[in-house]
């Protein structure tokens, strides 16, 4: 029986048992990495967040692809990625200037029902795509739309004209109960 520590040393020809042992470590590493991710990474999902997640995954499994790569190397690389990722996030909630330098801004594609061609060209958004996105947001006609904003995540937020919106209780002067979410008092017994 080999010493288990040998599996974690640089090795040109790692045995199957060695790869199996390394896999256990990789998966545990991925589990802990995912625990310490920024919520943003999964929520907003900009292109960069996607690449960041992919890099973490590729680093975590690098010792499984090549026996010569050590976990110490990949853990150091992962720690460096986390350092920069958190530093940028930390700075951008503290400094408006820094945030505006590194974050993309939202772009207005339709204003008062008129397509802003200049912004469409800048963001490589063609009319077919705009109409398709509008149909998905249940705005089937440009006439119904007041504003369309391209958000940094690549999604569109669409505001319809008031004519095409359903009425709200205020329109009929119906008294409304207080809003908000209920509080859980008893959970599963």
């Amino acid at each position, binding site marked *: 029986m080999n010493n288990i520590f040998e599996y974690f040393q640089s090795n040109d020809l790692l045995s199957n048992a060695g790869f199996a042992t390394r896999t256990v470590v990789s998966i545990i590493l991925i589990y802990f990495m995912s625990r310490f991710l920024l919520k943003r990474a999964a929520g907003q999902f900009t292109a960069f967040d*996607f690449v960041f997640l992919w*890099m973490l995954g590729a680093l975590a499994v690098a010792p499984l692809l090549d026996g010569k790569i050590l976990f110490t190397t990949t853990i150091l*690389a992962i720690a460096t990625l986390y350092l920069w990722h958190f530093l940028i996030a930390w700075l951008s909630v503290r400094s*408006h200037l820094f945030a505006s330098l590194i974050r993309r801004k939202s772009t207005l594609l339709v204003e008062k029902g008129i397509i802003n061609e200049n912004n469409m060209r800048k963001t*490589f958004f063609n009319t077919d795509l705009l109409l398709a996105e509008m149909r998905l947001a249940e705005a089937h006609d440009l006439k119904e739309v007041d*504003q369309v904003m391209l958000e940094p995540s690549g999604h569109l937020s669409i505001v319809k004209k008031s004519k095409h919106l359903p009425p709200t209780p205020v329109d009929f002067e119906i008294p409304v109960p207080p809003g908000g979410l209920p509080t859980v008092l008893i959970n599963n017994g």
Partner: protein
Amino acid sequence: MDWNSFWNGGSSLNPLEIFIRVTILYFSIFFMTRLMGPRQVGIVSAFNFITHAGMAHVATSRMVNPESSLVAALIIIAVAYSLSLLLSWFDYKFPSWVGTSPISLVKNGQILQSNLKKVYVTMDDLLAQLRLKKAHNLSEVASAMLEPMGELSVVKTPESSPVTRSMMKLPEIPSGMGAVLIYDGKVERQYLNTVGLKENWLEQEIEKKGFSIPQILLATLESTGSIHVSVKSHE
């Protein structure tokens, strides 16, 4: 530190060299994805996703593999993202190349079987997608179209759609998105100038609500014309 092996690859990397390599690659990917803009949605999303995934792989293998060349990685990343940008521009300029027209799957409650076969969507998948879009009965569907990005857009018949304000003969109200007037205690002067509002008018409006400008976390001009404020929490 041996700079030649650091840039072009050598027998081993010490911890400091790994740290600097990772930092350089992280920021090169960071700026390249920013340059790409918000193009991960839409018709070319699969293409963009695969490009991003491939480049992430190039970057990581160069982070941990001492024999690989860092310079080559930076060149690969620059070339790949430039080419990807160029192809996105072609997609924008010549939409007919990639086929951006939607395909109709349901028309007036009738399933278009031949189109369904063309796009490899089964009847069960179609019904599941319709249910997710809150169309539980086929008779309610005026039209369902498969959009180029692979999602289903559903138009319900007017009878099964909610009442709109115009049907109720209600007057038009201003719609739109709120604009930011104060951000973290600072007045957005640029916006005020473009819409022709005065800063002391804003000050008075905030005072009427019983606050002063430095206390405000965010103040927005709502579409209805009123000002909504979010006050900073006391620390």
